[in-house]
């Protein structure tokens, strides 16, 4: 058990007063950037990066990773309270978290979110600790066809289980793909859908779209329905936190499944956003309470949250061992590693064992610190719900606009936020689901690149998606997942035709 010895050594590196202080500072800062929509973990970490140049690498990575954990926790808060995801990876948390908050169960929803997130993170770190060698050799087998298959799988597992009118879902997906395609196409170098607008060259930022669709869209909807902020009670009761924690073990299946999805997506690396969608989709399909999803089901909060965090933590492994970032934030940290004079790669584990294991140890500690700090803020955040809308509404709009500005510092993005705000409002009015659009935007672009790279490599043969057992299984699974609902719908319709009485009510 060489890894365990190394981990113990890592704890001696990480467990100093100085480092604990850095963790607390990082987590608090992270919660702050996580709560503000748009100002997400990648931005927070980027802002801190220059500060770390003068630090020693272990302290620097502890500060940055702690900020990341804080941001992941903070991102769920606004998703649940205001239906505004603070982080792209918390979009899936809004589906059930917000209905829970509206039903007066905000404290409960927040507690579930934070506890399951902490659980997911721990599972992620444990996997890194125990399986680092195996996992890196596995991840080394991933080329473009494998990446495409993973994205396809994530996409299929969410979309196939989506509710709502199929035609509207397809429209939403197509819009997402179209928005994702704007800007320079990295495969051919050509400009797409830029209409000669210089501002569109860099593409439409996914964050701007999320802020508009969810943040501004939600505000418009609230305004239309009456100025009174809806329903949610701001009672703060510490007992509720305790009782929610007690009820948590009941959801162990959802937590384990979410963690497994998260670890898988973190390593492969599909990233936390795709992981949370995939986990939500699977939970909805597999859970006994699947029908309650979308109406305020705790499992619908737990599933995406565990996956989000376990993906976030396990994405650190491919970053360290292979130099492949599993998420946008780890891409920034990767840059940090280079600047601190460390080259990520297999040799990092050998040559700089104190750094690697110090960081892994700090991931255990940082997440514990994170859960404690963030639970302590639950009553505060829940109290925000009782603030009258006339005060909180303008604040949220301001925060949304500031968030959109921080993405690229471009005035054009502010107009985009307004346009997408109106789009979000219209989509909700017309019952078009927003989630498939978001997922299509996140995955579409990467999946397209991976697919076209695969096609160039295979010189146009689709067979490359079945060229090895690994990619073959992934592709087949994705296609099966995509076809299952079509098949069941077809069977249900046939049965409907033959036996009128036994119609399963859908």
């Amino acid at each position, binding site marked *: 058990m060489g890894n365990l010895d190394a981990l113990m050594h890592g704890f001696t590196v990480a467990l100093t007063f100085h480092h604990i202080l850095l963790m607390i500072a990082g987590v608090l800062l992270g919660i702050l950037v996580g709560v503000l929509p748009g100002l997400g973990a990648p931005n927070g970490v980027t802002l801190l990066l220059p500060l770390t140049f003068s630090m020693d690498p272990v302290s620097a990575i502890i500060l940055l990773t702690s900020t990341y954990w804080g941001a992941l926790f903070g991102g769920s808060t606004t998703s649940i309270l205001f239906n505004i995801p603070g982080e792209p990876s918390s979009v899936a948390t809004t589906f059930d978290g917000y209905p829970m908050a509206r039903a007066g169960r905000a404290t409960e929803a927040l507690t579930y979110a934070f506890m399951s997130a902490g659980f997911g993170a721990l599972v992620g770190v444990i996997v890194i600790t125990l399986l680092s060698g195996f996992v890196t050799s596995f991840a080394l087998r991933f*080329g*473009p066809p494998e990446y495409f298959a993973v994205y396809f799988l994530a996409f299929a597992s969410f979309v196939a289980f989506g509710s709502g009118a199929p035609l509207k879902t397809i429209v939403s997906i197509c819009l997402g793909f179209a928005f994702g395609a704007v800007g320079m196409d*990295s495969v051919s170098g050509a400009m797409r859908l830029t209409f000669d607008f210089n501002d569109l*060259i860099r593409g439409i930022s996914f964050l701007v779209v999320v802020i508009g669709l969810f943040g501004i869209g939600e505000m418009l909807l609230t305004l239309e329905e009456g100025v009174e902020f809806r329903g949610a009670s701001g009672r703060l009761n510490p007992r509720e936190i305790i009782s929610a924690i007690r009820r948590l073990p009941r959801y162990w299946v959802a937590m384990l499944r979410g963690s497994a999805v998260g670890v898988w997506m973190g390593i492969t690396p599909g990233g936390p956003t795709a992981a949370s969608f995939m986990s939500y989709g699977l939970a909805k399909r597999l859970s006994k309470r699947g029908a309650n999803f979308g109406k305020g089901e705790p499992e619908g909060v737990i599933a995406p949250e565990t996956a989000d965090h376990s993906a976030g933590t396990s994405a650190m492994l491919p970053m360290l061992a292979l130099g492949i970032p599993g998420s946008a934030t780890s891409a920034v940290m990767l840059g940090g590693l280079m*600047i601190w004079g460390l080259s990520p790669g*297999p*040799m990092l584990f050998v040559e700089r064992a104190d750094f690697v294991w110090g960081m892994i140890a700090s991931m255990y500690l940082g997440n514990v610190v994170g859960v404690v700090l963030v639970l302590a803020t639950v009553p505060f955040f829940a109290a925000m719900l009782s603030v009258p809308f006339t005060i909180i509404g303008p604040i949220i709009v301001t925060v949304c606009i500031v968030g959109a500005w921080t993405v690229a510092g471009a005035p054009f993005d502010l107009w985009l936020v307004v346009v997408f705000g109106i789009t979000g409002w219209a989509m909700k009015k017309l019952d078009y689901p927003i989630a498939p659009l978001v997922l299509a935007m996140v995955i579409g672009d990467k999946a397209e690149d991976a697919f076209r790279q695969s096609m160039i490599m295979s010189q146009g043969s689709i067979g490359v998606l079945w060229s090895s057992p690994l990619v073959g299984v992934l592709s087949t699974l994705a296609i099966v997942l995509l076809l299952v609902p079509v098949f069941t719908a077809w069977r249900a319709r046939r049965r409907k035709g033959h036996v009128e009485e036994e119609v399963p009510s859908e």
Partner: protein
Amino acid sequence: MITRRLALASGLALPAIAHAQSWPTRPVTLVVPWAAGGGADTVTRIFASGFEKELGKPVNVVNRTGGNGVVGHAAIATASPDGYTLGTGTSEFVNFKPLGQSDIGPQSFDLMSRIASIPAGVTLKADGPWKDFAAFVAALKAGRRGQYTGSGVSTGGSWHLAAAGLTRALGMEVDRIRWVPSQGGAPALQDMVAGGIDMFPGSPIEAKARVDAEQVRVVAVMAEARMGMYPNVPTLKELGVDWVFQNWFALVAPPRIPAAVRTRILEAAGKAHARPEVRELMAQRGIVPTWETPESFSAYAKTYAEVSSGLLHELGLVRS
């Protein structure tokens, strides 16, 4: 908060601009058209640390990414020419126009000097069929056009030109090596280790970690002289191939900066570049520091643009 400070400072400093000798009276911004942590960013931040000391004012490095660098380069070219916004131009900008990506080109900037360059190389899989450069060339010659693949950057990007120039110098078609576009060196190296890519013409510095792990091997460098990081790897010239290719990072400014301010910038930047700690930080990372006069850089950029657009023509990638 930084933005607010800048805004405040710019308001206060307006009258001071008239006195060019007093430049800088407020923080200077260096725009990097690439993401934090990449090669251009690292070079800029190292340079900025020395520049800051020479100027006695803070130097903010701002990453304006997107559109293959078009966004950031446009931000530099169209900035107000008061000396407070400079930036790092990278070799990509000479190709924006031929590739039909933007009208920005060498003429859009005040070209000051290259800060550093990173040579291309020939990197192969360690346990692959070819142990050295000669074996790889023999396989290329024996194989079909497009049989072997290379990767490391988007189509028409610097390393793509490095590979095209290599095969041309060897007397073969420019697209002898089929190009698989990628989002940078790390994923390309990963694909090579996974078995999907045959050669990586990108920077041997990027490949260093995988060389140490014995997953890949560098068999040649496309530099004028051997690299300090790879003393045993021959240059293409030593191997009898007349082809040198490097990526460069240069200090550029919006055109028409007042002459006095421009002189101050060049003087301070030159001193910053010569500082021992700046040189040492670059050397640690295998970056070759370069400093020259604006005239010699302009001439270099012109030649570079001619070679690049020639290759892009042959590759059929020219759009305008």
